[in-house]
């Protein structure tokens, strides 16, 4: 860039200084160089025209595309060698004997008759139509066809000129696109099926963490409810009700900290440990001790896995149920009495199960009489955000139970479920409910009223 500029200014300076002296020789030099340039161009042009002039016919015959001229009735009047080579026909076989449509496949012929020819007659030109030609050996050649009607000076149509482009590459490309699209669709179907399968597996695992149905307990009504905050996250809430074999019944409900598969694995460990421990333990506090030891042994370090649990036993005595419960850091059970009052069954001193070597679980007792119901719940209920903003508290739950009592087990669960549904999106944790009660004397089935 700089050099050019300097050169130009040098020349300008010099011509200013040496105007008179250098003018003529300078001009002479320019003339010379022009003349020599012309000579080169002329020679090249001659060379090119030599190549071109004797090849007009050759250009037609061996063009990189097929040429075809047909009469208005379709009969072939002229065809180039390229197209003959593609089709494997001799000129004599085609000229004057075949029509353009004879070269097409059946489908192509139909399309030619119904669309191509009428359009050509109407517009005088048809461009880039994809057709298939039939070669002499029966093979098919995908082509792109463009036709123009040649008219005489009086505007009368004389003949049809057609160019034929080999579209095998393009067809291959299109087929590749089609194949890729089909493959993508199939992959999506597979992914969708996998997703469905995973969903089913999650649902099955989730269900395996809960008892399939509560057992029938003579003289008692039991009801349960389980809500997962999100469909694809395995929850960590659990509950169970089972026979202890000597006429007594064991039950528990709890909440494993965390969500997802890890929490689900812990939930599984807890359920089976607690169920087995309950069979041998003297009271629920001892069962929680065993569970605590199992969790501590299994999960250590900076990945503590623990749960809150309330576990208990039911001992029928007369028409009543004597209840013993122990809590490991779990919200207290709520008692809905036949007389219309509601209160918590305090279980102080209990600690989260699985964080300390020797926790102290203290049992608490109560008696359920006809018309009484005991509700166990996980903190999804008391921690839910209500529409107003603040979280639903244990006071609010207490007050709600007060308006509900007396109520049977199923009736209590139904009312609590309705309360949960009223939270809508505010319910951002899993929630489990387990209600155990003795039907009121005036009802034999269903909840007390």
């Amino acid at each position: 860039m700089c050099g050019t500029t300097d050169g130009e200014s040098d020349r300008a300076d010099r011509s200013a200084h040496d105007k008179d002296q250098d003018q003529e020789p300078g001009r002479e030099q320019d003339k010379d160089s022009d003349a020599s340039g012309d000579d080169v161009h002329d020679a090249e042009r001659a060379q090119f025209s030599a190549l071109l002039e004797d090849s007009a016919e050759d250009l037609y015959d061996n063009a990189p595309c097929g040429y075809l001229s047909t009469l208005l009735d379709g009969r072939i009047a002229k065809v180039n060698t390229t197209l003959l080579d593609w089709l494997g026909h001799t000129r004599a076989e085609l000229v004057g004997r075949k029509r353009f449509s004879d070269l097409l496949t059946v489908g192509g012929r139909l399309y030619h008759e119904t669309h191509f020819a009428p359009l050509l007659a109407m517009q005088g030109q048809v461009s880039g139509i994809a057709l298939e030609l039939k070669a002499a050996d029966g093979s098919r050649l995908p082509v792109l066809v463009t036709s123009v009607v040649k008219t005489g000076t009086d505007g009368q149509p004389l003949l049809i000129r057609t160019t034929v482009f080999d579209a095998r590459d393009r067809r291959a490309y299109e087929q590749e696109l089609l194949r890729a699209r089909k493959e993508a669709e199939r992959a999506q179907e597979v992914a969708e099926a996998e997703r469905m399968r995973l969903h089913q597996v999650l649902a099955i695992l989730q269900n395996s963490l809960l008892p399939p149905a509560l057992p029938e307990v003579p003289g008692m009504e039991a009801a349960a409810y389980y809500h997962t905050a999100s469909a694809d996250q395995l929850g960590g809430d659990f509950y169970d009700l089972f026979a202890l074999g000597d006429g007594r019944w064991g039950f528990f409900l709890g909440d494993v900290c965390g969500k997802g598969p890890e929490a689900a694995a812990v939930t599984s460990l807890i359920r089976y440990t607690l169920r087995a421990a309950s069979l041998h333990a003297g009271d629920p506090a001892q069962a929680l001790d065993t569970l605590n030891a199992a969790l501590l042994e299994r999960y250590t370090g900076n990945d503590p896995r623990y749960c809150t649990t309330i576990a208990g036993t039911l001992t029928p005595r007369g028409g009543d149920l004597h209840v013993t419960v122990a809590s490991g850091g779990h919200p207290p059970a709520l008692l809905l009495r036949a007389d219309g009052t509601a209160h918590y069954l305090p279980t102080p001193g209990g600690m989260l199960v699985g964080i300390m070597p020797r926790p102290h679980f203290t049992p608490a007792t109560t008696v359920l009489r006809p018309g009484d119901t005991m509700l166990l719940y996980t903190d999804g209920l008391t921690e839910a955000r209500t529409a107003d903003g603040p979280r639903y508290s244990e006071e609010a739950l207490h007050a709600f139970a007060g308006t509900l009592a007396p109520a049977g087990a199923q009736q209590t669960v139904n009312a609590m479920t309705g309360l949960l549904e009223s939270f809508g999106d505010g319910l951002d944790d899993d929630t489990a409910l387990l209600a155990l009660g003795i039907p009121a004397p005036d009802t034999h089935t269903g909840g007390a009223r």
Partner: protein
Amino acid sequence: MTDLHLTTQRTPAGSVLAVAGDLDHDSAGRFRGAVALIALQPGQLLTVDFGGLTFCDSSGITALIAARNQVHEQGADIVLTEVPAVTVRILRLLGLDQIFRIQPVPGADTDPVG
């Protein structure tokens, strides 16, 4: 929901971690991260200042227990200060008042549940 805001400050006695906002499933990981960066000498104290805490769920509790385990491994201790009444009640319910030193917000009603 209130975003969790964490501030760490070194003191001669150890470190003060001030927690403001919701300590829950979404934010507990950040709390753990902040605690992991705190190095204490044996005998020092990690003070978790809950003065700005608006909510603490079970994930927050887990993070607290993990913090306690980490601090104890370093031979240090942990204390929770300015703990809102509702959180004090949850900690008592969970029995964690037996393993954490808890200083409630002065004058707050923190009667046990039941």
